[in-house]
């Protein structure tokens, strides 16, 4: 009875605002765009007869424009997650090696940028990278370049923004496994004559593999659907799936096609999501 009093409101909320939207999303994806308010024809008519189709899914899966968008998003997400992992690993290791009392301030220092506002950080990169921006000014003052480099609205700008935004997500799970590791294992390996590089490769790195996998996925999954950074920093041709979905919804007002894109994106992410959940469920 008492459990019910806790579970019932929470479950009702989740059913209404998490489960039901997924069902509606799938339903609308089977519908058809239509001039009207709202601008679509649902898959079931008012009297319950079926009028839906899988046409949107066929379009999303066969049209090269959408297929390329998915492919590109996966490549960008993979590259972003790999870069974050590479940069985050030494950071997490260095934090895990300091005495416990000094770890919290360092972790907070890593987290603070995450709290300073996502758009503000993207805005800072615009100020840094544009033609009349800070970086071009510095390079020109040093005499390294004469004309400004077109840094903004490029793949470089997009990756800088992506890694900057997602790096804190990668540091935390890595730090969690590295802080838990038993230093005695590394000392034993070193005591038995292993060089530091060997100790790292044969002891530290394998011990931290689950944290590294979690860090990779924690970046990869949201990055695959990222919209804001490619839109504000990336080149116009970087038509990632988040951007394409946004365009179908806001510019073309094709809600069913946008819904089909969302469903396919979800389907692509189910495997990494399951993997992440299994890593999180480890003792």
């Amino acid at each position: 009875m008492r459990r019910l009093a806790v579970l019932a409101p929470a479950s009702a909320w989740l059913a209404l605002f998490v489960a039901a939207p997924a069902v509606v999303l799938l339903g609308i994806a089977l519908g058809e765009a239509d001039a009207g308010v709202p601008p679509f024809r649902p898959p079931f008519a008012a009297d319950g007869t079926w009028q839906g189709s899988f046409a949107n899914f066929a379009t999303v899966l066969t049209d090269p424009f959408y297929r390329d968008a998915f492919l590109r998003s996966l490549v960008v997400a993979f590259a972003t997650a790999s870069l974050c992992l590479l940069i985050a690993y030494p950071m997490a290791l260095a934090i895990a090696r300091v005495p416990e009392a000094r770890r919290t301030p360092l972790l907070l220092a890593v987290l603070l940028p995450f709290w300073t506002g996502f758009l503000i950080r993207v805005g800072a990169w615009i100020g840094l990278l544009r033609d009349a921006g800070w970086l071009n000014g510095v390079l020109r003052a040093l005499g390294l370049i004469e004309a400004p480099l077109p840094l903004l609205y490029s793949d470089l700008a997009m990756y800088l923004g992506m890694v900057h935004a997602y790096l804190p997500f990668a540091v935390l799970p890595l730090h969690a496994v590295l802080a838990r590791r038993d230093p005695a294992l590394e000392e034993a390996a070193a005591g038995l004559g292993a060089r530091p590089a060997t100790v790292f490769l044969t002891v530290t790195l394998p011990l931290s593999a689950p944290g590294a996998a979690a860090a990779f996925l924690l970046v990869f999954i949201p990055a695959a659907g990222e919209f804001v950074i490619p839109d504000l920093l990336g080149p116009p041709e970087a038509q990632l799936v988040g951007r394409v979905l946004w365009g179908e919804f806001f510019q073309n007002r094709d809600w069913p096609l946008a819904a089909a894109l969302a469903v396919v994106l979800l389907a692509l992410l189910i495997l990494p999501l399951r993997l992440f959940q299994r890593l999180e469920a480890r003792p």
Partner: protein
Amino acid sequence: MSVARLGLRLGLGFLYLPIVLLVAYAFSADRIPFQWGGFSLRWFRALAEDERLVEAALLSLRVAAGAATLAVLVGGLAGFALARFGPFRGRALFGALIGAPLVLPEVVTGLSLLLLFVALEGAIGWPAGRGALTVLLAHATLGAAYVAVVVQARLAEADRSLEEAALNLGATPFVAFRTVTLPLMAPSLFAGWLLAFTLSLDDVVLASFVSGPAGTTLPMVLFSRLKLGLTPEVNALGAVIVAVAAAALGLAALVLARVDARRGGG
């Protein structure tokens, strides 16, 4: 210096360089952001006089406060259930649903919530239209996922025997909850509220999908301005937001540290 420590310094440098420059150049008089034109507070003044920005900021603060409060209620209940109810029927589904907004791409969550609101309005007439209320509900759903994680982690490391002792000494479950469990949860509820509040203030994707003409939040205004580039006003706003975020994070760290110290000492 070891490779790892060098990596930490470079990583922190990379994280902070854009933010430090943004804050520093907010005090520049120059019209072009990130160009030094002498010290000036003119862009902060311009910011305060920008009615559209101020109005959007006030709306965002109201939405964030409401969303964070709802998120603490829902996420607190969910985190408590996950930490204390053991293996109950439907637990796996319950856990997956509460965590879903945390991992799903924002465009997916935003679009599906919008379609839900449209379907609900068509079926039962609520919520009537879209605006601040629908943004608040979307942000509460996102925030609840974070609150549940924080609360569950806190309760998992808290000593359960305290609650059992209270029950053995004759406290009713409600009294045991109020006098033992709730104080144990309190710091995580506070941290969760702050987290949900900041997430709401920061979100542009969910808000853009589920909002209507009357519900333009601060990030939505910011996003449309950044589409055209960085202006000195937005630069000044960035400095204000960084200052508020640093203060909030410091406050949260202080509260959590004091609670830990008190528990450790007593």
